[in-house]
């Protein structure tokens, strides 16, 4: 059954989608949770398989690359797969309680398709397959955004859809050029023959622009806050935590596989500048929002900026520092996924309590829902990058890497970003601590909602203590070109 775990990552979500479309309400839920459990187990067994045999490839349909499509299981893919499994299952549990029956009916298939798309992206090592995966992901995400069916979310969905489509087309253009130049779609094979000619540079440029647009990197970010801020809570969590990571993951994959850090230092610098701008702009905007979920959405924007700082820090000169940066970036991604999901869920609960979106309506909630505020706070700790948390560890590694390479600008940016994030998170906090007259008329969310939010937040903190478990999966050779 050696082929099972890896295929399971694709088959189970698709089965889930089928089941949720075909079955009646009760069986839909039951089967969904059975499949979620199966997927979690599947991930674990894949992890053990990875421990056993290291990085391995799986040819779909027994057609090996470049003719067929190969899936690849390496540390990075595994980390992301585990991450999505964790976040998605918790979000599913949350959604199951949070959403109304009609919404839930539609949520399940979207959710499963989303998961399938994510897994296919994590595992794929084929450029075109990545494109299809991206499309699947985008459409599922758009569907989820539109799930609340009001005008705002429709506008958000449309914006998102167009951005995503444009991004996909950019990516596809790049794939077209690369295929024409090298005659292959398989990423490992491509990396063997790759050289930075004009056409491949243009191709990579298009791909990167497209993917960064989907990731909502600074100047191309305007679709993100309304989409993430306006969606239903579990959806926001999924989108912010997982969906934007997918396109970024591809950029990261391309960058490291094709060893772009050797090819062009200025590109890395450009990425870094975009990232810095995102950090500062996102932080600043988050500080000035009046709606809770928009604060969190803008915070995602800023966090994406941190991920971008990996690129200038990957250098061919200093292997150790590059490795640190890569590890740091991955840790940041992971921590952000957990923390942001936790934060969105907690925020959703808060908004549920007060029934309004305004920050002002949070007054008195920290008395009413201390556990929930605690969950929000823990997630905030990771987002701010305060120790002990995954976010801190990631930031630490990035700073270390920047220091070792004497790239002080990034250190300054990271620090300013942390201060900004602290400012906006604590701003939210101070609203919850406000005591007002009549601040007792709150709805009470179900216990599951609070516990799910808390569990993710706690995980993001625990990640700070167990980072080595994650980082051990990333051997130094995976990053640095020999």
């Amino acid at each position: 059954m050696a082929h099972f775990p890896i295929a399971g990552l694709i088959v189970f979500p698709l089965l889930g989608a089928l089941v949720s479309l075909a079955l009646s309400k009760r069986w839909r839920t039951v089967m969904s949770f059975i499949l979620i459990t199966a997927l979690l187990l599947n991930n674990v067994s894949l992890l053990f398989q990875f421990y056993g045999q290291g990085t391995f490839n799986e040819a779909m349909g027994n057609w090996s690359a470049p003719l067929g499509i190969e899936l690849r299981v390496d540390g990075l893919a595994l980390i992301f797969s585990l991450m999505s499994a964790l976040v998605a299952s918790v979000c599913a549990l949350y959604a199951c309680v949070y959403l109304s029956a009609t919404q839930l009916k539609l949520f399940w298939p979207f959710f499963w398709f989303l998961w399938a798309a994510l897994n296919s992206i994590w595992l794929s090592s084929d450029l075109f397959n990545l494109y299809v995966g991206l499309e699947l992901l985008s459409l599922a995400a758009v569907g989820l955004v539109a799930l609340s069916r009001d005008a705002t979310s429709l506008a958000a969905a449309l914006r998102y859809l167009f951005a995503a489509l444009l991004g996909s087309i950019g990516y596809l253009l790049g794939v077209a050029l690369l295929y024409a130049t090298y005659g292959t779609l398989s990423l490992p094979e491509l990396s063997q023959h790759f050289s930075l000619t004009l056409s491949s540079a243009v191709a990579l440029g298009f791909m990167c622009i497209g993917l960064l647009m989907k990731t909502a990197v600074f100047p191309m970010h305007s679709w993100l806050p309304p989409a993430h801020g306006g969606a239903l809570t579990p959806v926001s969590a999924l989108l912010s935590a997982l969906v934007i990571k997918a396109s970024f993951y591809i950029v990261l994959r391309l960058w490291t596989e094709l060893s772009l850090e050797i090819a062009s230092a200025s590109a890395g610098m450009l990425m870094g500048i975009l990232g810095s701008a995102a950090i500062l702009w996102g932080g600043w905007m988050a500080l000035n929002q009046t709606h809770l979920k928009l604060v969190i959405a803008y915070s995602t924007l800023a966090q994406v900026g941190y991920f971008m700082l990996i690129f200038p820090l990957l250098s061919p000169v200093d292997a150790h520092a590059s490795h640190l940066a890569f590890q740091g970036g991955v840790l940041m991604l992971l921590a952000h996924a957990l923390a942001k999901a936790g934060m969105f869920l907690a925020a959703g609960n808060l908004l549920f309590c007060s029934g309004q979106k305004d920050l002002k309506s949070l007054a008195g909630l920290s008395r009413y829902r201390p556990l929930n505020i605690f969950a929000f706070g823990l997630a905030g700790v990771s987002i701010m990058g305060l120790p002990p948390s995954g976010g801190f560890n990631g930031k630490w590694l990035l700073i270390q890497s920047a220091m070792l390479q004497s790239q002080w600008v990034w250190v300054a940016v990271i620090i300013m970003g942390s201060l900004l994030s602290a400012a906006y998170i604590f701003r939210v906090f101070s609203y919850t601590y406000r005591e007002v007259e009549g601040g007792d008329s709150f709805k009470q969310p179900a216990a599951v909602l609070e516990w799910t939010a808390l569990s993710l937040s706690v995980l993001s903190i625990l990640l700070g203590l167990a980072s080595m478990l994650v980082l051990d999966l990333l051997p130094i050779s995976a990053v640095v070109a020999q």
Partner: protein
Amino acid sequence: MSFFGLLPLWVLMTSFLAAIVIFMLPEERHGLRSTLNLVAAVVKIGLIILLIRLVAQQETPEVSLEILPGLSLVLRADALAMLFAGLSSILWLCTTLYAIGYLENSPNRSRFFGYFSLCVASTMGISLAGNLFTFLIFYELLTLSTYPLVVHRGTPQSLKAGRTYLAYTLSGGVVLLVGVALFYAFVGDLAFGQTSQMAEFTETSPIASAIIFLLLIGGMAVKAALFPFHGWLPTAMVAPAPVSALLHAVAVVKAGAFGIIRVIYDVFGIELAWQQGYVLPLSLLASFTILYGSWRALQQTDIKKRLAFSTVSQVSYIVLGVTLLGPIGTVGGLVHLLHQGLMKVTLFFCAGNYAETLGIHKIHELNGTGRRMPMTSAAFTLGALGMIGIPPVAGFISKWYLGTGALAAGMDWVIWVLIGSSLLNAAYFLPVLYRIWFLPQQGQWPHEAFTQWRDTAPLLLIPALITAALSVAAGLFAGSDLSPLSWARLIVIREYQP
């Protein structure tokens, strides 16, 4: 690992687990929560005693966990750690008792006690931290866990105070972070006490070393409320009395001071720091803060504000002590860490008692309280006398060591600072005592409560008496083997004779 080997972890966990459980408890379970809190505090003291005995036998139990490549979370119980941990554990018990009494019938107790325990857990972490990184982690955690306590009341002032507090401490934290990161990037993952590599590094790149020192100390100085960074402390006074007590006596300012001790002694080494000329500016700054804080305290009309500025001044004693080259000054600084904690906590308890029992917040309202609340006033008097440095209260012992230490280090000017500050201390504390004891009551108390008690509610009174008694005992029996002073000597002996 054996039970004893894991002791540092258990010490940390007692309050951490307590915090977790308290967060889980529903708001109404007051009895259970209080019991839990107290049991945890007592257990912690027990564990600390075990640990102290181990440490006294030249053992250093250590727990470490690698959380990033080349970066470990280390909890290590060395002698210095136990000084601070001991203080925190004792004061945790007292403050918990006090807080239970203080917050009776007030809302949000679950939240309060949860963060309270968390705060203590972080303090424990700070004290047991075995390297700079671990220290940093708990240092930041402390900031986080104290913020909810500062803004606990939720009034606009407290929110504003919380903002100020955060602005200061987070900026300080960031400076510290950069310092620590630089340290790890260029010097390496070193446990506290491994100063030889730092010396080598300083030889090769003195500028970088100076920058690291500056950043580390700068980061700590914010929490230690050294002069230009002291602004948060008086503003944070809006917090409830137990919080103020905790902030001032145990948690925050002490964490900063403790950090400075660690940096000077266990990261750089005092000899190196002196050779490089890092320390003298610091002691000048500390001296200035001492005088400045006292001077400002003199002008306050609010009891807690006066106490706050007094803290600004007193914590710098610690810094001043550890910057003195030579064992005696170090003993003074270290022991003042503990003594100041005991005395300041007493003062804050009493201030809280006045506020709770009689509604007194301003100094001029204190007239005649000695008659109404003799026990509280007695405790307050002891604390204040200790602050001035009048024997036999503990403050004198530390002042004595500081003065002689300064002379031993050849820094004669320090004793004039000490004397000047003592004069100022007397100038701002003695009038208060005078009002308490010797002036008749003026009209009605602003807001009288607890009329069924002669003094005030026992839960409020007893902790204040305990800490007052402890601070007298620490001074009176300073020569005994169990005193803080002996422990500080032990630390210094180990520090200077590795």
